[in-house]
């Protein structure tokens, strides 16, 4: 009798566990879709429209990056941390912090800076889900791009940490740049990029 209750509890427990954990992850993934992101007009009217002008939306090879590809970490633990931090965004949605185009513009620099800092602090982790110095073919790149990527590609080949991360140079590639971003970045201790020592040999 006792044995039956025991095994019954275990079976029910497992089923319940699957249902709850599965349901939790399922819901989590639902909030990880472009459809969910642009269900808020703040996202659909501003940043989503801007994304559609860029190479991450339509390009030669037909690969597209949508909102969560860049803005939500893929790895579980980092994803959960980001999702918890997103409660701040829910709060501001309720407050209507950016609910008109004017408010959005006024707030754009703040939002951009915080996203740039997030990317800088993780060594552009979300970029590197697709892009890597190690897999770059410099010969296939435009001369100017190749020239800029070259030192970092070789740093990686030599087993070193690249001295720059994607977001150091590639700001404003998916959304419009805020007014005054250059000064803001220059004056920020975290985002400031040290210029390479001038290579004026040529």
């Amino acid at each position: 009798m006792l044995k039956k209750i025991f095994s019954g509890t275990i079976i029910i427990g497992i089923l319940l566990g699957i249902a709850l954990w599965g349901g939790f992850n399922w819901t989590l993934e639902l909030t990880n879709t472009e459809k969910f992101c642009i269900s808020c007009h703040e996202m659909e009217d501003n940043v989503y429209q801007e994304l559609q002008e860029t190479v991450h939306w339509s390009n030669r090879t037909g690969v597209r990056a949508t909102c969560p590809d860049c803005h939500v970490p893929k790895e579980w633990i980092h994803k959960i941390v980001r999702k918890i931090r997103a409660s701040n965004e829910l709060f501001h949605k309720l407050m209507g912090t950016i609910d008109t185009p004017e408010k959005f513009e006024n707030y754009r620099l703040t939002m951009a800076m915080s996203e740039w800092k997030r990317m800088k602090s993780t060594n552009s982790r979300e970029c590197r889900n697709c892009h890597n110095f190690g897999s770059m073919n410099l010969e296939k790149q435009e001369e100017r791009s190749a020239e800029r990527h070259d030192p970092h590609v070789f740093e990686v080949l030599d087993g070193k940490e690249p001295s720059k991360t994607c977001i150091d140079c590639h700001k404003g590639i998916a959304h419009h740049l805020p007014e005054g971003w250059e000064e803001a970045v220059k004056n920020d201790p975290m985002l400031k990029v040290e210029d390479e020592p001038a290579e004026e040999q040529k």
Partner: protein
Amino acid sequence: MKKMIQVLTVGMFVSIFSVAASAGIQPSLRGDNPLDKGEQGIAVKKPLTVKGGIERSFKKQPPMIPHGIEKDRITLKGNTCMKCHSAENAKKEKAPEIGESHYLDRDGNKLAKPSSRRWFCNQCHAPQVDAQPLVELDYQPQK
């Protein structure tokens, strides 16, 4: 008399039409592509990338843009061309810096930032594609 007027009017129309037809309508950028077919059948030309820039054809010609600009955006708030061509960035990016004239307002006063009259780069500077002229040109670049 009435008949003569009739003949003359008909004659006049015929001659006008034939002149128009024989004058040869200038070839258009669309070529033989019908208007109602949209962009179908029109070859896409890629913007040229010319290392070292494109030479001017005459003095004071706004230099043409030797690269694509499809990723660039110019608005009231921002101008992504300035990522390379502003006074601060030009040297670092090894790009030509915008000319001094770009800092002058219409009264000739020198401003600290590029004048709003010169803000919209592609009003004067244009990217190029490798396309042959539609009509023969005998223009010689002036130095």
